[in-house]
C-alpha cells in the first residue's frame, strides 16, 4: 500500500521522493527502503516508527545525508542532498542539521558546555548568546556546564546532546532513539524538552523511535514496514500508536 502525504501550507523542511536503498548484491540483496515518498513539515515534531528491521533508521540516515541513496531524491529545505560530494554534505550537516543519537552523543574529553558549543566551533560560527542562555535555561543544566560526560547522568547527557543540536539553529534535528538508553523518568524529561523546543523555539524535529510513548510526544507519526511507508497518524496518543503497530505486525 502506498499513500500520498498531504502537504501543510508552509514549505516542508525535509522531502524524500521515490527514495530507495538497496544493500548487497545478487541473492544477498536487501531492499532497506522501497520508493519512499515522505515530507516533514517545518516547525513540527514528527516521529518515524516501525518494527525492527522496517528501515526506519536507514530512512533517517538517508534523510540526514549520513548515507547514500540507491535512487530517488532527498531535499533539506531547497537543497537536494542526493549527488552532493562528501565535502558539500559535511558543510550541509554543519549548517542545517542537528543530531541526537541513542548513545555516545558526547565527546568524553570535553565539558558539557564545550560539547554544546562544538558544532558552532567546527563551523567557526559565533554563538547566539541569548539563544544559548535560553537553551541552557530550558534544559536546566546551568550548574552542570563544567562537568564532563562521565560525571553526568544518562538523562543529563541526552539533554546536553539536545542542547547541542539546538544551539546552531539547524533547519532540522534528527533524533535517533534519543530515549532508548534512558529510564522512563529521564526519557519523559528529554521528550518534553524536545516538544518544548518545537513549541517555543519553532524547531523542526524528526525522531526515530520504536517506543509508542515516545512517539506520542510528536505531532505526527509515520509508520514503516519492510522498507515501505504504510500509514501515518496525527496527534497520536500511546494507545493509538500501539494499536497501529499491532495492526502492522499482524
Amino acid at each position, binding site marked *: 500500500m502506498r499513500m500520498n502525504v498531504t502537504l501543510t501550507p508552509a514549505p516542508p523542511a525535509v522531502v524524500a521522493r521515490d527514495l530507495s536503498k538497496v544493500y548487497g548484491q545478487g541473492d544477498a540483496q536487501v531492499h532497506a527502503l522501497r520508493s519512499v515518498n515522505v515530507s516533514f513539515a517545518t516547525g513540527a515534531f514528527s516521529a518515524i516508527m516501525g518494527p525492527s528491521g522496517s528501515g526506519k533508521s536507514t530512512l533517517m*540516515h538517508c534523510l*540526514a545525508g*549520513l*548515507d547514500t541513496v540507491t535512487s530517488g531524491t532527498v531535499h533539506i529545505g531547497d537543497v537536494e542532498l542526493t549527488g552532493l560530494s*562528501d*565535502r558539500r554534505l*559535511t*558543510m550541509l*550537516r*554543519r*549548517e542545517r542539521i542537528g*543530531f541526537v*543519537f541513542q*548513545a*555516545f*552523543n558526547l*565527546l*568524553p*574529553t*570535553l565539558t558539557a558546555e564545550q560539547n554544546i558549543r*562544538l*558544532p558552532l*566551533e*567546527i*563551523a*567557526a560560527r559565533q554563538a547566539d548568546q541569548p539563544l544559548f542562555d535560553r537553551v541552557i535555561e530550558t534544559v536546566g543544566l546551568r550548574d552542570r556546564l563544567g562537568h564532563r560526560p*562521565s560525571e553526568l547522568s544518562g538523562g543529563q547527557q541526552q539533554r546536553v546532546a539536545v542542547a*547541542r543540536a539546538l544551539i546552531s539553529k539547524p533547519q532540522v534535528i534528527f533524533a535517533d532513539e534519543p530515549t532508548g538508553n534512558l529510564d522512563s523518568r529521564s526519557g519523559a524529561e528529554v521528550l518534553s524538552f524536545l516538544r518544548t523546543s518545537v513549541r517555543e523555539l519553532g524547531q523542526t524535529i524528526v525522531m526515530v523511535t520504536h517506543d509508542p510513548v515516545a512517539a506520542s510526544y510528536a505531532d505526527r507519526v509515520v509508520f514503516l514496514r519492510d522498507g515501505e511507508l504504510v500509514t501515518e497518524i496525527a496527534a497520536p496518543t500511546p494507545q493509538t500508536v500501539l494499536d497501529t503497530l499491532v495492526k502492522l505486525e499482524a
Partner: protein
Amino acid sequence: MLRTALAGLRAHRLRLLLTALAITLGVGFIAGTFVLNDTVQAGYDQRVTADAAKVDVAVLPKGPDAVLPERLLERIRALDGVTEAQGLIRAPAPVLGKDGKTAGNAPTTALSIVPGPLDRTDIVEGTGPGTDDQAAVLDENTAKAQGFRPGDTITVLDARQREHRFRLVGLLDPGVDQELSYTGAVGFTAATAQRMTGAKGYREIDVAGTAPGLKQAVAAAAGGAYVVKTGGELATDLARAAGVETEMLTLGLLMFGLVAMMVAALVIYNTFNILVAQRTREMALLRCVGATRGQVFGSILLESSVVGVLASALGLLVGYGLASLTLTVLAAVDAPLPTDAAVTLTPVTIAAGLAVGVVVTLGAAVLPARSATRVAPIAALRTQAEEQTFRAGVVRAVLAGLFLLAGLGTAAAGVFVLPPGQQVSLVVVMAGGALTFLAVLILGPVLVRPLSALVGWIPARLFGVPGRLAVGNSGRNPRRAATTTVALTIGVTLMTLISVVTASTRQTMTVKLDEQFPIDYALSSQRLDAVIPRSVATELRGRPELSSVVQLREARVTVAGRRLGVGTYAGPIEPSLTAGSMKGLGPGQAAVDDDLGFGLGTAIQVRTPEAGTVRLKVVALFDSAESPLPQVTVAEGAFDTYFGAIPDTRVLINIRDGVPPARARAVVDAAVAAYPTVRVASSTEIRGQFDETLDMLLMVITGLLGLAILISLLGIANTLSLSVHERTRESALLRALGLTRAQLRRMLSVEALVLGLIGALVGVVLGVAFGWAAIMAMLDGAVFSAPVGQIALFVALSGVAGVLAAVLPARRAARASIVGALATS
C-alpha cells in the same frame, strides 16, 4: 584455548604486523651484526690459512721491537729436514709522494719479498721485485692515493733519510694486515729491504720442511729467547689478532641492537596492553564460558610467542640481507676487511636471533597478559568499555622521586666529585643517566598531560577545533601515551647526547688550540723524530712574515726506569707551571710533567748517550695539557751536553698579524722544501681533520640510532591506529556534527605531532643534561656546547615523523562510513 588464541591472531593481523615489524627490525639488526662478524672472521681465516699453509714452522721474536739475528737463520737453514728458510724484514722506509714529501700519516713499512715457495705476498698487478734490487712494489691504496702506476719511478728514504729511486714493477694487496693497511707497504728484494731500512735482523723466520718434529728441532736451534710456532698456530694467532678489531666493532653494533630491542619491547608492551584492553569483553566472555585465569594468561602469551617466533625468523632473513648489503658496500669502498667469504647464517646466529626476539616479545607481553587475567566475567555484560582512568598515586610519586634523586645525585657525583677525564667518572655519570631515565619512565604518565598542553599550545591555536580536540586526545590515556613517547624518547635522548658530546668536544678542542697552543704552523716528521735541521728555525726567525718560532728537541731515553721524552726548547713559550719555577733552569735541573708523579726536589736518573747517567733535580712541575714541552725538560745548553747537537723534533710557528696566511705558508714551505721528511701542518688543517673525524662519528652513530627511532615510530603508528579503532564512534559523531574528512585526518596528525614532540622534548632535555654531564666527566676543562640547530632538527624531525606515522591510521579513520561506525557498539 589454542584455537581461540590463533583466531585472535588472525583477527588482529594488521596490528600484530606492526608489532612484528618492530621485532623483525631489532632482530634483523642483531642477526646482521652476527652474520657480518662471522663473514669477516671467516674471510680472515681463509686468507690467513692460505698464507700459513705455505709455512711449516715460523720463528718470531719476543716483544714488539725485537728482531731475529742473521745467525739464527743460518742455524735453521743448516738443520736436517729444512728444505727452505727465509727471514722477513719489516721496518719503516718512507715513500715520497709526488709533492716530494713523505706520503701518508705514518712512514711506509718496507717488506722483504722472498723468492720461492715461502713468498706470502699477494701481488695483484704487475710482478714482484724478483731479484732486481732496483725494483719495488707498492700496496694498492698508497699507489692509488699518490697516483703511482707500475712503470713509474718512486722515491723512498732510507734509514738515514737519503733518497733512493726505484722502478715500480707491481702492486700488492696488504690483505688483512691492519698495520700495513694503515702505514702502506713498499716491497723490495731482501737485500734492498735490508739496505733501505738498516734493519739489524728479521721480524720473522719462515721455515719449510717435511721432517717430523720439525718444530721441536727449530725450537731447539732457536733456544728459549724466541717464539716458535707451527704454520697452523701462526694462522690461528694471525686470524685472532685481525679479528680483535672486528669483535670491538661487533660489540659496538650490538649495543645499538640492544637499544633497538629495548624500544621494540616498549612498543610490544604497549600494543599488547591496548589489545587486551580492547578485548576486555572477549576475555570476560571466555571467563563466562569457563576459561580459567591461567588459560586466559596462556592464550595471550601463546599469541605473543607466535608473533615473536614469526617476526624473529623474518628478522634473521632481514639480518642476512642487511649483512650481505653491508658487505657489498664495504667491498665497493675498498674497506680493509675481507668481504669475499660466503655469507652464512650460523646456528649460533639463528639461535641468538630467535632467542632475543622471542624472549623480548614474551617478556613484554607478560604484564598485559597478567592484566587480562584480572578481567571479571561480569565485564562481558557491560555495553561500553570504560575509559582507562589514571591517577598519580603516592607510590609512583615517591618511587619516581627516589630514582630521580639517586640519578641526579649519582650524575652530580660523577661530574663534581670524581676527577674528570677518568673512565670511572663517565661510567658513574652514565649510571646516573640510566637511573634518571627510569624516574622519567615511572613519571611518564604524570608528565604527559602538562607536556601535551605545553607542546600542543601552538597546534591547538593553529588548527582550530581539530587541533584542540587532538591535544585533548593526546593526553587522554596518559599511560599509553607515555609508553608510546618513551620509546621515541630513548632514541632522541641518545642522539642529542651524542651531538652535545661531539659539539662540546669540538668546542673544547678549538678553545684549547686557540688559547693554549696559539700556533699557526707546526713542523714535524711522521714519527716525531729529530730530523729538522736547526738551520730551518734560524732561517724562519729571520723572516718578517713570522712573529714567533719555537724549537723543541727531544730524545726518548730511560728515566728512572721508564722510557720518557727528555728534551729542551728554544723560543717564546710561557710554560704553565703547577709548582716551582723554571727561571734560570740550569745544568742538573729539570722541569717535569706533573702527571709523571715526581715530586718537587726529587732527583731523577737519566741515561744519556753523551754524558752517561746524570742526576737531575726536579725544580718545576708543569701541566702537559697546556704546555707543549717534553715530559722532562732541561736547559738548552745542558741538553746538547747530554745528547749532542741533534736536530729539532718540532718547530712551532706563528704568523705576524696582518700577513696573509698564503704568503706565510709559502715562506714556511720554502724553508723545508729540501727536507722531505719534514711536514708542515697548519692548525686549520689539524682542526679540519679533527672536525671530519667527529662529523663522521656523529653521522655513523646517528644512522645507527635511526633504527631505534624507526621502531618507536612503528609504536606511534600502532598506538594511533588502536586509538582510532577505539574512537570509531566518536569520529563518526564528529563527522555527523560537520567535521570534514580532511579535518578528521588533521586531528589525528596533530595528535601524532604532539606525541612526537613530547617524546622529542623529554629526549632533548635528558640528552642535553646528560650530554653536559658526560662531557664534563670525560674531558678536563671541557667547554659545553649545545648544537642548537641540530637539536632543533631532531625535534622537528620527530614531529614530522610522528605525522608520517599517523598517515595510515588517519586515512582509515577518515574513510570509515559514518553510519557503519555509529552502528558498531
